[in-house]
């Protein structure tokens, strides 16, 4: 199962959107390069497929791991107030992983020709958008840092995660487990790595003024 999961995750990688501000921050500060070793045994076993209506089977939504610097970072560029979108289409959340700054407002437009009922019971942001038809959208403002796992009550194989961060330094972990966060201001920083099935881990890194610090995180 796991072997099949990882290649699929790798295939999905090009679809994932990366925050554009990461590149701007890379000019001043050090780079954090890391290798995430995903343990072969996940914290929980997840069914690969899910029975859907009409007898078909559905893939459980895959959420890539993410690495980010926890806490606020002095001197970091402010996040833009631009609204974000987490669309429901083809009974999937797109994108499956959305990293937003604290205070960001996220739209949940329904792109499918049927109702969805998006909710999250995560302490980072509990919300229940209720059911709404195609074309309609609801918005949620994420005002606390943390990770909110997003589900649809009607289509139980759908899942997504909204990672609410306090600084712009984050990166999606690649299929090979590698990530690179550039332009992190020097100093001692906490690096958090999160995976939907394995939970999260935070390590201390000392970011140099310039150059690269390499970390290895086992999750």
């Amino acid at each position, binding site marked *: 199962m796991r072997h099949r999961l990882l290649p699929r995750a790798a295939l999905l990688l090009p679809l994932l959107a990366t925050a554009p501000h990461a590149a701007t921050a890379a000019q001043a500060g050090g780079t954090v390069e890391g290798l995430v070793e995903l343990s072969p045994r996940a914290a929980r076993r997840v069914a690969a497929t899910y029975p859907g209506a009409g007898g078909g089977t559905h893939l459980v939504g895959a959420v890539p791991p993410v690495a980010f610097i926890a806490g606020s970072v002095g001197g970091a560029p402010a996040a833009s107030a631009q609204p974000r979108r987490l669309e429901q289409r083809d009974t999937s959340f797109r994108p499956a992983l959305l990293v937003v700054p604290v205070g960001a407002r996220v739209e949940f437009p329904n792109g499918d020709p049927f109702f969805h009922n998006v*909710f999250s*019971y995560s302490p980072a942001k509990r919300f229940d958008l209720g059911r709404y038809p195609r074309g309609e959208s609801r918005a949620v403002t994420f005002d606390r840092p943390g990770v909110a796992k997003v589900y649809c009550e009607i289509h139980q194989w759908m899942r997504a995660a909204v990672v609410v961060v306090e600084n712009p330094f984050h990166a999606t972990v690649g299929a090979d487990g590698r990530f690179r966060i550039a332009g992190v201001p020097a100093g001692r920083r906490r690096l958090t790595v999160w995976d939907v099935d394995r939970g999260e881990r935070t390590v201390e890194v000392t970011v140099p003024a310039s150059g690269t610090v390499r970390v290895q995180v086992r999750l």
Partner: protein
Amino acid sequence: MRWTGARGAGAADLLRTSFRARLLFALVGSVGLLLAATLLVVRLQTRREVGALVRRAVERTNTAFGEMEEARRRQLGGYAARFAGSNRLPAALEEAAAGPGAARFLAETALYELQLAGIPTALAAFADAGGVPVAAVLDGRVMPDPAGAVPAGAAGGAAGGPEGAGSYHRVGGRLFTVQTVPLALFGNPVGTLTLGVPLDDAAAEQLGRSVGAEVCFLSGGRCLAATAAVRRGGLERAIAGAAGAGTPRRIRWNGERMALVPARLGRRAGPDGVSRVVAVPLEEVLTPFDQLERAQAAAGAVALLVAVAVGAVLSRSFARPVRALVSATRRLAAGDLETRVPRAGRDELGTLAAAFNEMAHGLMLKERYRGVLDKVVSREVAEELLKGEIRLGGETREVTTLFADVRGFTPMTEGMPPERVITLLNELVGRLGAAVESEGGVVDKFLGDGLMAVFGAPAALPDHPLRAVRAAVRMREAVAGVNAERAARGEAGVEVGIGVNTGPAVAGNMGSPGRLNYTVLGESVNVASRLCSLAAGEILVSGATWARVAGQVDAVPCGERRIKGLSAPLAVFRVRGVRAPPGPGGPVARAAAVLLALLAGAPGAAQPLPTLAELGVAWSSPAGTVQVTPRGRLELESHLPRAEREWQVPGSEPGLQPRLVLAADAFAGSRWYASVAVHADRARPLSRGGASVRVEQAFLRWSPLGGDRLAVQAGQFASPFGGYPQRHHTADDPFIRPPLPYDHRTMVSAARVPAGPAAFAGWKDAPDPHRPEGASAVWGAPYPSGALVMGRLGRLDGLVAVLSSAPSSEPRRWRHRPGEGAGASVAARLGLQLAPEARVGVSYHRGPYLEPDPAGGLPPGARAGDYDQELWAVEAAFARGRMTARVEVLFDRWEVPRVSRRVRDRSWTAEARARLSPSLFVAARYGAVRFGRVAVEGRPVPWDYDADRAEAGAGLRLGRNTELRAEYLILWTDAPPAGGDRAAAVRWSYRF
């Protein structure tokens, strides 16, 4: 008689009470048993019915409850599936399990879902994947502490399947039917949800109504849910008690009986386990049985009463004739031969009564006949007739006939009334008859004023002529007495004429079988009658009679008379009186002549030969006060073969051994008696001597009180010790040999003294010739000399004797020779006649047994007289009809010099004898002797070899004089060579 009567009354009482009681007991007992059995059957049936009812009720309850529970569970299952199917609750649980803050949210979510589902009162409890309670909702409220709301093992139960999932749970004093389902997110278990609906009074009421019983659900000893009746009546306590028991229990509650049937719900046992008790009402099913039982008890009581009454009546009706029979029997025993019992009916008792009446009638007739016969014929003849031994015809024998006739009777009675005449005649003739009977004669018939008497028939009397003459003299004296009385009154006297003749006559029962008359017939009888006619107040005897009594009777010849019917004239003598007898020379010579004749021809004699007394070899004083009667016995004995052990005493040899015994008994009056017996045979033991003639017995006995009440005796006589010596030569003992205890030599010697215990114990293994040295336990039949006093008191008799020799002493020591014996011994005997058939006795004998100077030498300072032999004998005899049985046990103790004063042996003999016919008798005997032990170097060693002997004997009497005996015996002994030994003995004996 009184004793017998008392015993009879006691037995009758016993019979009466026990018979009635038993009958009553049988009746009442059988009725009672029947009742008990019926009651038992009804009880069993009741129990079975109740059991079936309870079972049915429980089954019904189970079914109803099962259906109810299934519906509830189905509903619960539906909710659970719905909750589990959504990802909201799993998502909330996942968050709650991750952090404590989310638990409240989870509970509220659950509350929302329950309200949405429309079961707001239900229980919902969550546990995480590890089974730890996370949150719970009850009655629409969030429970502050969810810990008690989740059933233990819910996580495991959830994994275990539907069975485990369905159970019961107690939360806050309420009972819930719970169902636990797993919650999963994306197929991943995040924990469990336990949904429960209350099992409350309403549910119990619903169940109770549907099954018609009271129901209660319990846990922890408390009634958590129950039907209204249980709640109302306080039945909970009884039910709580019953729940603990594993089996149904019956109680009475508010006057109604019910069965409490407990059942465990769910899999959990112990105090937290949940159980259900169904109270099944029994009143309805028990009522008919109760009525039945009551009716049965009433009917049973009536039946018992009837049984008692019927039993009493029946037993009375049975006992009355029995009682009547008993009292009639008692009256009969007392001599009332007219006694009859009423015929009770046609049953067995009636038959018994009839048989009794017949018996009484028969007895009465017999007694009446006896009375008549006693009057008509002599008592002896009457008894013979009544014994039924009446044969027609008779035997020719020599008798003396006497006719007496009263003269001058007619003139004397002139003018007397006839009754007076008869009385006088009877008085006179009665006196004449008494004279006849006093001399042993028989009044054959009364002949008006006279009588006819016979001497010598039916009982043989050797001296019948003399007796007849003496009777005649007595008659004359009697008449003289009557005349003297009459003369004193001035009345005329009478005379009696008597005729006596001796000669052959036919004696026997004459007449027809229907009417017999014992009498004597013959010419000699006629002659006596004629002599009587001739006699005028005198006694006339014929020459034949005179020849027989010449020595004792004083008579004068009256010449010869012609007698009618006799061709020759008859010499007639007139008797003057009976005189003193002549000297003994004549009879002795005659006895010797008779003896010689017997020796020549007696064994082959077909006819009974006369005895010495019958031949007139006897002497009697004229008054008859002194009588000497001789007896003789000739024996021929043979012991075959000579295989028997040498130490058997007396020693024996093959071939014929003759023995002649001549004895004489002398009576002087009724107080003095003397007896002498001379034996001529080969001396005992045979191996030690040749022929000898010796006086075996000679003694004088004085009975100062007459009879046998008290007697003193001195001389030489048979030893009074033990049972055997007294009867050893009588027909009572059918054997030739003495019994084993009297016929066995022990290793104790009278002539030798052992050197010590070892030597003594070794004697028994010495070579055979040594054996005869030993002393016999008791000599066969010793005749010691001595003196004794004996007496009898009621049924008790006893004697004390001083004797010259010990029980084991050999014959040469029997007769006392001053200065020779070791000393006198004492003997005693006590006998008790328990019943006419049974007798017991004990004997004792103790005295020195050693020879005056034993060859072995006595210890220094000891004398032969210091060593005693002591014997105890216990005997018992029983005789009934033709059977006789006898047992005798002897305990022997020897004082053996240098060995012990307690050298013991014991022996016993048991004997049974049967008389097969008047002339044939058989007997069997068993004897054993057992020897004690002496200490040889501290070890008990038997001092002689035990022996056993079995014997069979038979005797045949040929006529009245001759007897043949044969005996066969088998002897076993441990003495080497071990094994059995056989011997036989025969004896022919002739008494004269």
